[in-house]
């Protein structure tokens, strides 16, 4: 398969899972002292393949030591809380 075709196939898989996800009626909820939680009506059926793989890939990479340190400004002990302005090319802080 040529690269353009491959890309189109992946995009189609993505479009399909967006459609599939509609049945899950996903809701972002907040619990108690701010625990965020995703509520889904149809969770028991399991997530669509694309959505699950994407979530796990992103989670796995962005919480790995290399992933965090190369992607973000990793500040495990901020020591202070400040409202600041974005710098040019500002990376997300990871804690």
């Amino acid at each position, binding site marked *: 398969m040529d690269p353009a075709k491959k890309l189109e196939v992946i995009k189609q898989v993505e479009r399909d899972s967006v459609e599939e996800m509609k049945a899950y009626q996903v809701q*972002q909820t907040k619990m108690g002292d*701010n625990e965020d939680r995703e509520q889904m009506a149809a969770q028991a059926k399991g997530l669509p393949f694309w959505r699950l793989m994407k979530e796990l890939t992103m989670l796995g990479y962005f919480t790995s030591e290399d992933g965090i340190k190369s992607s973000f400004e990793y500040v495990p002990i901020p020591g202070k809380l*400040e409202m600041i302005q974005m710098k040019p090319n500002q990376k997300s802080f990871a804690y």
Partner: protein
Amino acid sequence: MNLNLKATNANTYDAIVVGSGMTGGMAAKELTERGLRVLMIERGREVKHIEDYDTAMKGPWEFEHRGKVSIQSAEEYWANSRFGTLANEETGEFFTDDKKNPYIEKRPFDWIRAYHTGGKSMHWGRQSYRMNKKDFEANVKEGIAIDWPIRYEDLEPWYTHVEKFVGISGQAEGWEVLPDGHYLPAMPMSAPELYFRDAMMKKLKRPVTIGRIANLTKPQPWHTELGRASCQYRSKCARGCPYGGYYSSLSGSIPAARKTEKLTVLHDTIANEIIYDEKTQKAKGVRVINQHTMAVEEFFAKIVFLNAGSMNSAALLLNSKSSRFPNGLGNDSDQVGRNIMDHHLGVGANATVEGFENDYVFGQRPNALYIPRFRNWGTDKKDFLRGYGYQGGASKSDWKRGITMNGFGADFKEDMTRPGTWTMGFGGFGEILPDPSNRMFLDKDKKDKWGIPMIVFDAAFGENELAMRKDMMASAVEMLDAAGFKNVSGFNRTDTHPGLGIHDMGTARMGKDPKTSVLNKFNQVHACKNVFVTDGAAMVSSSCVNPSITYMAMTARAADHAVKELKKQNL
């Protein structure tokens, strides 16, 4: 005979405190500082401040499941899992294995427990608000349940006393609905939050303030003396804080009590029964079971403080039967175990915020905004009673936004390393009315592995709570709309039950009349005055504010009274 006497002497203290959590810690501190020798009994394992906070300094990559709950943990922690991810590898060791400590649900009850030193103070939300004057009068004015035997003024000095010791950061506002306490400097609001606060006052006349939270922004000498330092803005409080940045029994009250050298703590020891002396008509001690060896032992004291958590304190009363109290110690009124209250939650709204692209935050604020009750307050009148407060705030989205976005590949990955747009959302905490049919009791036949009758829950939300929830969602949507935010979406979880607020209370209420209440105005069991119950069980109504600071204030007040009465030889 002599041997027995020796054993009795060795097991005799001035006071026994059952529980080491929020109120047990405070009771131990207040009693030891007044010169009493205190035995604290904790049913769970020992957790040592700082050295046992195993996960506190770990990076995200050091957790095998990266914050997700494994299938095995979800099964073991079946009740905890109703809340969310409490049983994950970061904090799971500070919650209780529900499979090993089962309970029975006649109607569902979401019981979240923490059996170890410090109890739930280890991972409480730390939000600390005083109840207001009207909270104490609401029952009698509306003809609900019974009247509080105390008023705001009775607790006021004790709020001050515990607030200073605990160390609460917040902003004094001068609002009658949310009485000001004594605060360390407030944490800042972000730019969209400041905009939201001003918009709410201008458009809806609803006040918004920064959360009043038990994290040290400017430690005072009495905090540093106990080894506590300023909050480091990591917002990983629930793992235990190696800096003592937030208040818990472990960082605050227990170290303070230990300084007096009058505190003895027993771990892995389940208080099974209060021993009642028919001759003196007083409690003379507590019978305990070692949770590992099953060994039974008795301890004796002049006074007993029950701080086992509302449900377990009530269970201990119910399990303490004698010929004087065939239905459980202090249960002449049949109110022990009844009137379970909590705060209902899981209802609110979220939105995306346009603009503020250049604003960002350094550090993780372990705190949120607070929107105090506005319903049925002043001239506002709704078709339900009481009200609710909201907690929430704005945050700039991180890589997690990518999970639900379209996109993949190198550009997508690069984009995810940068902050996204702001989102804002909040959820409510609603007052629950006392209802005697919302109750817990001990099963007649089923016993746990220590031979203690199992707790059965039989409680549900009533019509008032359900009506309030609809309004909680609608008002949250209304406020985010009024602020001009986009993609506003409300939520109202229908899978929640009493207990999930982890503010369970009311099972041994105070009152003026022994026929309708369990405790008097100083938290003493009406018919057995040397037993004090000063955890959430004592609550007569629930208000809508987070209750821990009120429990602590009541505890300090009761401890002061207990020592004065002891000196007068009245106990």
